[in-house]
């Protein structure tokens, strides 16, 4: 790529981050804190030592996977806000297979992953189907299912799937054969990073080189045009949601297999919600999402250290997230080419459309 292209591509994320941190700095200032101190504390807490880097990467794994999930949906024009619920279902499914069955690791690990993927995919299937067949907005259905997933997993983990040896709402420990071991001991970086990396590659390949990826993107650009071109739009919508859910479910599976080794109530600090910012910041690309995931992993990891050191509440990260979404989401401006509808520069087309644009404040 030419330099200008790289700058152009990186321009929006950098601007988005700049604006987000700037706004966060203002909030911290107004609250009586020191932005420099807070951000420095955050940075050192996230990257300050080998262990810290390991922890940051560990936190970025589920973000990478759920980020890819949201990105895939967005490529097809779908807003999958249900990554959190899909993650929970996938995690519980994987944990269950992990403790209920006793198999050699070579079978157990893929089986647990498969269970997670299946759980997440299943959870996203209904919103996909409703959108495809009934035009029901997936934002509402996925959010509703998030709440359902929360209660359902809570119910199961306090009754049927609960560990009888403890009072805590959690499943029994997964067998050692179902766990993802450590790649690097510092920070607890587990093999889930490999799973995430593979998914990044698979995503890139799917989008760039496969027919399915092409059709998904076509549906995302213009469902009508895609339909005219003979693409099964309904099928693609369902497929996009199912694949998206599968990735989110994998995120849940990897988390319980690599970090917690069981499912316990409310183990997720909201990875599914962070993922929206991650996907948008990464411009829905494989590499972008991966980088954004590491960044947000750093933010989350560093935020707690920052809160302990400087009294700035860690929720500032959520604020940063929201602003990132706004700026990164500006990409969704239709037609940024001058002279076409949607841009404010009428260009050379001084016709009625240009006048209407000029009339619009």
């Amino acid at each position, binding site marked *: 790529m030419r330099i200008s292209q790289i700058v152009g591509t990186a321009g929006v994320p950098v601007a988005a981050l700049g604006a987000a941190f700037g706004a966060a700095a203002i909030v911290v200032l107004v609250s009586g804190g020191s932005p420099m101190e807070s951000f420095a504390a955050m940075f050192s807490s996230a990257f300050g030592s080998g262990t810290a880097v390991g922890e940051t990467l560990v936190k970025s794994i589920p973000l990478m996977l759920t980020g890819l999930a949201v990105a895939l949906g967005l490529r097809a024009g779908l807003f999958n806000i249900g990554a959190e619920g899909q993650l929970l279902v996938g995690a519980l499914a994987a944990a269950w297979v992990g403790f209920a069955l006793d198999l050699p690791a070579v079978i157990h690990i893929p089986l647990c992953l498969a269970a997670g993927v299946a759980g997440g995919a299943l959870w996203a299937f209904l919103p996909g189907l409703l959108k495809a067949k009934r035009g029901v*907005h997936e934002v*509402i259905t996925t959010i509703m*299912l998030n*709440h359902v997933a929360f209660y359902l997993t809570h119910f199961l983990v306090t009754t049927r799937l609960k560990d009888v040896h403890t009072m805590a709402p959690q499943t029994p420990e997964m067998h050692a054969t179902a766990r993802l071991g450590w790649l690097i001991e510092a920070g607890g970086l587990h093999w889930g990073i490999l799973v995430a990396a593979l998914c990044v590659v698979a995503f890139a390949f799917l989008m760039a080189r496969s027919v399915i990826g092409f059709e998904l993107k076509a549906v995302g650009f213009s469902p009508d045009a895609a339909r005219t071109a003979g693409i099964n739009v309904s099928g693609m919508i369902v497929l996009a949601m199912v694949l998206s859910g599968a990735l989110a479910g994998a995120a849940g599976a990897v988390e319980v297999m690599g970090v917690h080794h069981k499912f316990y109530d409310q183990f997720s600090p909201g990875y599914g919600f962070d993922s929206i910012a991650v996907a948008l910041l990464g411009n829905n690309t494989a590499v972008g999402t991966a980088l954004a995931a590491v960044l947000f992993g750093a933010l989350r990891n560093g935020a707690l250290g920052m809160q302990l050191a400087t009294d700035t509440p860690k929720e*500032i990260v959520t604020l940063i997230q929201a602003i990132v979404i706004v700026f990164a989401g500006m990409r*969704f401006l*239709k037609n940024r080419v001058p002279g076409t509808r949607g841009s404010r520069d009428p260009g050379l087309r001084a016709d009625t459309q240009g006048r209407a644009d000029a009339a*619009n*404040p």
Partner: protein
Amino acid sequence: MADIFDTELIRSTFRLATPLILAALGGVLSERSGVVNIALEGMMLAGAFFGMLGSYLTGSPWVGVALGMAAGGVFGFIHAALTHRMRLNHIVSGVALNILALGLTTYLLRHIFREAGSSPPVTGLPDWDVGILAKLPLVGQSLSGQNPLFYLSIALILGLNVLLFTTPAGLRIRAAGEHPEAAETVGIRVGLVRYLAVTGSGVLGGLAGVYLSLGQLNMFTEGMSAGRGFIALAAVIFGKWTPFGAAGAALFFAFFDALQMRLQGQTIGGLTIPSEFMLMLPYLLTIIALAGVVGRASAPAALGRQEE
């Protein structure tokens, strides 16, 4: 089993419906002008927090009401600005505002009160005894003794209906939502209309949130809107974008929420229904309701379009 269908159930239904109705009316207003308002949830949350804060700082819940409405209005204004001026995708803007509201309210909660999870208790809104209404058959007992915001919501249903369907202003709003280009050519300033409608929608969303913190719990808890903003949006769709329809749908959802609360722990035919399934009910119902809505032909034609 039959004894759960009593006045108390109806009373709870009205109580639970109030925030949904208010938010849904806001949704109708915004969407009729052509702007999808996914951010009702965030507006509610902001209204709940700032309503609590207003009451906390001054001891008067009415100040809280004003502050909550203002907070919702600010969110509405931001949504209008982002979607109209910056031409941001309506959904993205809404999602961002929801996350912003959650982060901001949680941040301020911890920062101001140094406490995680919930604020200290504050003075809430009083219940009003409306003697005349109590005399109505069947629902009379439940209609009296409700929160003032409930009565306001009823007034607003009528008011919004009148506004949208009989006044020139309402016509302008609907024109902006159906065919903004045509509206512009006859001199309607679509931008101004949308700013007003969406800000107004924020005010109503904020009001709905105020009800949550000052009308029910008398405190603010983290994330207390709990998805109600989305249920309200579903009520708008289910109610075909009319004030009466949306309010009716809101009552429908609220009824099942009230029912769920009554049924918790009850045995039906020897089986105790776990409370979690009851808690899931409003959310599942919303999905079912949306799935059953036949076609989207009743949406404003230019809803969510980004060209403008």
